[in-house]
């Protein structure tokens, strides 16, 4: 799961909290993390129906401030950062000079700074990249004394608004400052499960007390990383290091929404020439979803065939607890991506039947403006 060296494994603020609740801990992104509590399928389905509490404190939380910080951020991110309103957030990408994806992230404009959440496994490289790419006059703070919790699922709003009145007024991809028992919380209505829900940034020393309060709500159970992965796969959301890496650019990854029209027209971000050409003329390969026949899942690395021709590779695959079928995400050559196209996937020498499927595999249930 992780590609990190195993030598320095650190504990996160809720390490003991997870163990006290019966979590099985594994090392991931340089930390010991809860992989599961009751079982991935039960946790997955609980989150789809109720609310799951995820500890994502391994992720990097960064604050960037200074003059014209939005203009500077647009030089390294392909999104509309200048046009981003206060307390609004976007999904964006750190890119190398060829347009390859160094990381995917969430960026929020706050009244005095920008708040970024980057992947745990890449955060050290991201910070180095940001230091190099951004002007020295800007200030970059790594909130390494902060924990990050995600409360996800259709009942997350019931549970959280009981404790923190006002969060129900947030809509998808907006955020704000709140207080619970004197603890300052930065809460956004966002997540990576496809469900409605919230992400809560808070000081590490308050993490146990706040996690206790959240987990005490009847809708809420703690959920491990295993279900987080199966939930995001069903939601069609790519995972960095698996579905996204430096060989993939935003056009290939099908992340057109992360590179809006103005940025495609103006360029001015790393790899813009290649990326804009791929958007305009079509990328040489594309990210697709696959639904397999039978019950045998295809995993990352399994080769995808159109007839006898190898056309691509699976980058994430598993068994969908909601759909009760194996699903996968992968890249195939352009021209082989039409929905319902029959393909086969090689698993240990067997050719499994699959069809190209629209993503998300299970519908997103975000609470958007006006809904």
């Amino acid at each position: 799961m992780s590609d990190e060296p195993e030598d320095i494994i650190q504990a996160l603020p809720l390490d003991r909290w997870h163990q006290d609740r019966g979590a099985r801990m594994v090392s991931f992104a340089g930390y010991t993390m809860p992989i599961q509590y009751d079982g991935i399928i039960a946790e997955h389905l609980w989150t789809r129906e109720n609310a799951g509490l995820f500890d994502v404190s391994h992720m990097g939380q960064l604050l960037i401030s200074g003059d014209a910080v939005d203009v500077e951020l647009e030089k390294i991110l392909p999104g509309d950062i200048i046009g981003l309103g206060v307390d609004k957030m976007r999904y964006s990408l750190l890119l190398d000079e060829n347009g390859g994806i160094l990381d995917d992230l969430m960026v929020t404009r706050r009244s005095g700074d920008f708040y970024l959440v980057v992947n745990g496994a890449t955060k050290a490289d991201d910070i180095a990249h940001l230091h190099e790419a951004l002007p020295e006059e800007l200030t970059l703070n790594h909130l390494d004394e902060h924990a990050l919790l995600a409360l996800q699922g259709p009942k997350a709003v019931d549970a959280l608004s009981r404790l923190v009145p006002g969060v129900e007024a947030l809509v998808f991809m907006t955020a704000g400052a709140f207080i619970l028992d004197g603890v300052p919380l930065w809460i956004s209505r966002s997540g990576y499960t496809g469900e409605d829900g919230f992400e809560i940034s808070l000081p590490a020393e308050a993490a146990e007390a706040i996690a206790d309060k959240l987990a005490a709500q009847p809708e809420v159970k703690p959920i491990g990383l295993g279900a987080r992965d199966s939930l995001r796969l069903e939601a069609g959301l790519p995972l960095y290091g698996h579905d996204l890496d430096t060989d993939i650019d935003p056009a290939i990854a099908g992340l057109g929404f992360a590179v809006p029209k103005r940025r495609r027209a103006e360029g001015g971000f790393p790899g813009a020439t290649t990326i804009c050409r791929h958007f305009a003329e079509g990328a040489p390969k594309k990210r697709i979803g696959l639904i397999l026949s039978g019950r045998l899942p295809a995993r990352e690395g399994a080769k995808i065939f159109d007839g006898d021709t190898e056309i691509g590779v699976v980058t994430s695959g598993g068994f969908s607890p909601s759909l009760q079928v194996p699903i996968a995400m992968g890249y195939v050559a352009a021209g082989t991506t039409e929905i319902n196209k029959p393909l086969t996937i090689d698993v240990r020498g067997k050719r499994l039947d699959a069809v190209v499927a629209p993503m998300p595999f299970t519908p997103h249930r975000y609470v958007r403006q006006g809904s």
Partner: protein
Amino acid sequence: MSIFFTDEHEWISVEGGTATVGITDFAQAQLGDIVFVELPALGSNVEKGGDAAVVESVKAASDVFAPVSGTVSEVNSALEEDPALVNSAPETDGWFFKLALADPAQLEGLMDAAEYKAFCEKL
């Protein structure tokens, strides 16, 4: 009937020249929800320590090794319909396959129940 265990968390129950093989309760708990079991072909020969089956959990595929050499004489077809039997009854109804033993002397190096319990406690 004697039951033996391997350090790869398989159990093997021997009666005469036939052995029934499965994975232990410890193993199923580590693997989590099992969604598919790939069993060896009937009549195929498996080698002690070689690949014999594959267990697919939600997250990952794990190899199951043959605890001893032999010829596959029966496979548990109930696992096709209900792979979760491996979670709910790993050491009974969730058995994987039966072998005609090639060399009963290979059983000698395996653990008995008490040794296996001690082995797991150290992990």
